[in-house]
């Protein structure tokens, strides 16, 4: 049974399909916001198959094994992070105490892997993109961590199933922690390197950044890693703040799980929609402005939220 969970649902194959669906929604809604038509629904599939069928070149001075290993590690990290997120009940297939920290750690692996990819490309653009990626990590990682761990601070339980149990019994955390929700979404945009934070692979300045030397199947896996990270990150925020599978009313049995899962998907797409609106409305900002903004606005917002929580807990309200 655990093999089924790992490979088919909610493991590799279903994450693959959902992340392609995610990319389609991203591109279509962005296009409609820019008053264009947008690609048809099979476009991400077509891109993936086309990239897999092309020749994959490795630069002469780069290390072939490391070059190939990086996309595979990335996909593996994101898939492993995703199977710990509870999709249709309070428990994921492999729950344990502390799994929220493991998920957050695994989701920050892709940034480090992009750094390695850029560094090992032996290309000027790769080096610059890699350093920019790591610099950006300094900016948003701390607010992201604090924002995602604030539900754990409220409940006092450090596992996703415990947090979801709390949300099922009381209200969803977005009512208690609105500032954390906002900070989590903005930091997720930074982690996924979406506009306005897509400095590391700023195509218009450094022609691709860490992705410059990748082509063919390796590039297909890199793009897949980014798409899966998009879906996994949105799903994590939906689980932590919007109540996951929870809905008003009770339907028993398998039908209840199915309804819960579909609502979970809808909540993930709501988070995705907010990310898309942020992408369509803004330009890219400079790397020093990213650090400036994170340390000046995001970190204080989340600290204020945490102080409010601590105060309320001390006063006995929560």
């Amino acid at each position, binding site marked *: 049974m655990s093999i089924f969970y790992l490979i088919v649902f909610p493991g590799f194959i279903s994450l693959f399909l959902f992340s392609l669906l995610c990319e389609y929604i991203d591109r279509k809604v*962005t296009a409609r*916001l*820019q*008053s*264009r038509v947008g690609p048809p629904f099979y476009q991400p599939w077509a891109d993936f198959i086309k990239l897999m069928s092309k020749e994959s070149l490795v630069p002469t001075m780069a290390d072939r094994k490391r070059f190939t290993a990086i996309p595979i590690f990335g996909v593996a990290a994101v898939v492993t992070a995703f199977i710990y997120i509870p999709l249709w009940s309070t428990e994921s297939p492999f729950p344990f105490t502390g799994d929220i920290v493991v998920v957050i750690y695994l989701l920050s692996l892709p940034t480090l892997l992009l750094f390695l990819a850029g560094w090992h490309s032996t290309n*000027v*653009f790769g*080096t*610059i993109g890699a*350093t920019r990626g790591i610099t950006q990590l300094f900016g948003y990682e701390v607010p992201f961590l604090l924002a995602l761990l604030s539900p754990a601070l409220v409940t006092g339980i450090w596992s996703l199933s415990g947090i979801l149990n709390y949300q099922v019994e009381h209200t969803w955390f977005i009512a208690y922690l609105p500032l954390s929700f906002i900070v989590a979404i903005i930091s997720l945009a930074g982690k996924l390197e979406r*506009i*306005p934070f*897509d*400095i590391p692979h*700023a*195509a*218009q*300045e*450094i*022609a691709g950044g860490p992705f410059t030397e990748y082509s063919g199947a390796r590039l297909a896996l890199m793009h897949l890693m980014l798409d899966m990270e998009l879906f996994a990150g949105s799903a994590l925020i939906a689980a932590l703040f919007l109540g996951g599978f929870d809905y008003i009313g009770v339907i028993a049995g398998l039908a209840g799980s199915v309804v819960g899962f579909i609502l979970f998907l809808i909540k993930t797409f709501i988070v995705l929609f907010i990310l898309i609106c942020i*992408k*369509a*409305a*803004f*330009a*890219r*900002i*400079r*790397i*020093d*402005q990213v650090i400036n903004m994170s340390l000046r606005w995001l970190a204080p917002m989340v600290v204020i939220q945490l102080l409010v929580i601590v105060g309320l807990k001390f006063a006995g309200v929560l």
Partner: protein
Amino acid sequence: MEEREIAFLTIPFGPQHPASGHFHALLKVDGETVLGLEPHPGYLHRGFEKLMEYRVHPQNCVLVDRADVLDPFSCELGYANAIEKIAGLEIPQRGRYIRTIMAELGRILSHITWIGVLSMVLGFDSANKIAWGDREKILRLNEIATGGRLYPCYLCIGGVRRDISQEFVDETSKALDYLEGQLSFYDYFVFKNETFVMRMEKVGRMSAEEAIDLGATGPNLRACGIDYDVRKDEPYEAYPEVEFNVITREEGDAYARSLCRRDEIAESISIVRQLLKNLPDGSYRVELGPECITLEGESYFCLESARGEKCFHVVSDGSPCPYRVKIRAPSFLHTLTEFPYLAKGSTIADIPAIYWSLDSCPADMDR
């Protein structure tokens, strides 16, 4: 991985690059700070000035609008006026009005293209796509009036090649109303967008003396506070008969240049409206007789294109083809003097912002 001491990196801001148009430069970079920039012009050099020495004047009028791809009407206007100065021709009033209308529409087109490309290099995808859609309105007007969208081949020696129809006048009024609505959209979406202001404010600052030393013209000069516009100082065509303001700003940074161009779009719309209202009847072209084969003389004509001051120096020695044609392209100085000067000391992320805030067209630079 062997240890290497890297003092500075050389990055190609290459000719095949989404941000640079078709312009090659080498950046010397230390971390994120740019230590120096070395431009290498010539990627788009097609040799217009030499090609024009082997063709007669009507052929040259049609050839020259590829010398500045983004603002072709200014090139045709310049060449036609230079030859008319040698021949001593007087254009009928309707011809002058039509020429001015097309020149101003070309300026609006160039500025909207500039908004699109600047947004693209700043990573501002949405504004790029929307600006490209707004270009279509003016390209449709070009198509109605001249038969071609990008390369009009319309202004010739003696006037314009065809008359404008009532359909053109109606479509132009509708397009200008639409563009005015779009300008108020661009105001809050682009020019007062927080991220755009963050990228462009205090970047690439030029003082007035530096601007004059480096040879800046056009909106680059007017954003430093100097009031110089060829349309007001040495008027040509129908400009003496319209009222418009010359837009100047004080700060001299990239944001000031952007706001200058945005206000110029509004001024151009008002100029075209005035001209359409007062369009006179009459002939639109005076025929150039057999004396165009044996023109002899020299003339120098300056005009205000969308980029800056463009001048044509034509020497004709009595044979059918001109002896020498020299085009003073404004983008040549923008790219080769101002850009390296402003790029020194800025960061890599500022380079595309500075380059496109100077609004230099690589085709115009290389000719």
